[in-house]
């Protein structure tokens, strides 16, 4: 589904990713972990065509991301992204946020988009908030709306960038439960950056550890969390797990 082949990304003189290659199979759940600044967000942004590579190729469902605007739009349609800071549109209600892209991009009728919105709000448990403004919701509720908004486009791929990092601790569990639910009930390919190691362990099929712009370890969570091979992975896990 996703293929990175010899990808390099640099900002000016700073090389963020160098010669990065990996693949993600359809319906696979992959978690990216690694120290701050190791390039995890950059990978998701490249996939979403918010940035473009400086060398190498990325393919999504066989299509190469070329930086060409038309191609980028085609690829973006298949991918949903949820941001750390939600990025809901404050000038629209929850309903407006959910139906905007389905009506304008996918060409759904208002009624169809509305039905889809209601269905998704049921899924995220916020149906009664449909006519609220995002600013009236808690962070956790906003993030669940943002997840619903991404799902409203029926993406094949979902990118989650530290979606619980901006939340108060008591709100994290609700969002993670929702993601588990989505993971179990859909066959969306999910790429997820998180510091929630417990979640990463039972949600993902594979965990990739990043450091210095490369994948230094790539293993199923059972293995990577219990018996990491690389010293850097061991150190990192020790630091985040506090043991």
């Amino acid at each position, binding site marked *: 589904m996703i293929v990175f082949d010899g990808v390099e990304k640099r900002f000016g003189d700073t090389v963020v990713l160098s010669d990065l290659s990996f693949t993600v199979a359809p319906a696979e759940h992959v978690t990216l972990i690694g120290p701050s600044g190791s390039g995890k967000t950059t990978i998701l942004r490249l996939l*979403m*065509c*918010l940035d473009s590579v400086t060398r190498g190729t990325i393919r999504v469902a066989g299509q190469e991301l070329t930086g060409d605007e038309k191609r980028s*739009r085609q690829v*973006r*349609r298949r*991918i*949903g*992204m949820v*941001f750390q*800071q939600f*990025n*809901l*549109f*404050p*000038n629209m209600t929850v309903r407006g946020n959910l139906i*905007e*892209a389905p009506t*304008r*991009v996918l060409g759904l009728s208002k009624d169809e988009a509305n039905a889809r919105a209601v269905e998704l709000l049921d899924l995220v448990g916020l149906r009664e908030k449909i006519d*609220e*403004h*995002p*600013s*009236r919701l808690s962070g956790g509720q906003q993030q669940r709306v943002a997840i619903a*908004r*991404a799902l409203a*486009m029926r993406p094949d791929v979902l990118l989650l960038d530290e979606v619980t990092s901006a939340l*108060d601790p008591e709100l994290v569990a609700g969002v993670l439960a929702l993601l588990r639910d989505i993971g179990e009930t859909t066959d969306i390919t999910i790429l997820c950056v998180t510091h929630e190691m417990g979640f990463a362990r039972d949600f993902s099929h594979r965990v990739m550890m990043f450091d210095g712009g490369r994948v230094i370890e790539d293993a199923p969570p059972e293995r990577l969390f219990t018996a990491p091979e690389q010293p850097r992975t061991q150190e990192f896990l020790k630091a985040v797990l506090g043991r």
Partner: protein
Amino acid sequence: MFDNLGLIVSRLSEGLSTTVIAAVGGIALTVVLSLVAGLGMLSPVAVLRGISRTYVEFFRGTSEIVQLFWIFFALPALTGFQIVPLAAAILVLALNHGAYGGEIVRGAVQSVPRAQYEGALALSLSSRDRMLRVILPQALVEMLPPFNNLFIQLLKSTSLLSLVVVTEITFIANSLRAALPVSEQLTVYAVLLLMYLVLSLLITAGMRWLERRAAARLGRTRATPRINSRLHKEQAA
């Protein structure tokens, strides 16, 4: 001293409609020019950026009175074509204030967080929808207070039209001065000042109303939304 108050008010009122038409027409055209110039300066097309920037710098950097004289005296001399004075007045007022307005629009659009733009991009919205549906509605809230100032300045600039013999209120006040005894001149100009004040208060009232509506559309209720919502969160936490 106030013997002729009734007469003065009624004479000045005759110019009021001209002043209002010049101001309202000027404001309407200013809004259009501001949006065109502001969005033009943000365009990915270099030529559009260049044209917009040139327009803004030229009309911001040259004297309003001289621009007025140009359209009234130099243009007819050059082309033999004289536009209706009031229409010419509206055009000059708008060209001048639209240059300032362009900067207001540009600044407000740029003040919308980049994350909003990327959120819209991630949903595959077209560049047109991104601007019209997501960015501009949010920028609008930031534009309204500076536009309020700009519109009041435009209102006051309508008094310059007296210099090119448009019979608006300042022109009438000046002609009354010639006809009335010195003791009445105070009254004439006091009434004139009050008229501008009332008009500018009307503009402010209208703009405040728009501000409240725009803020409500963003789910904000107070005048200082950002600070308030942060306080709110801290109190709740």
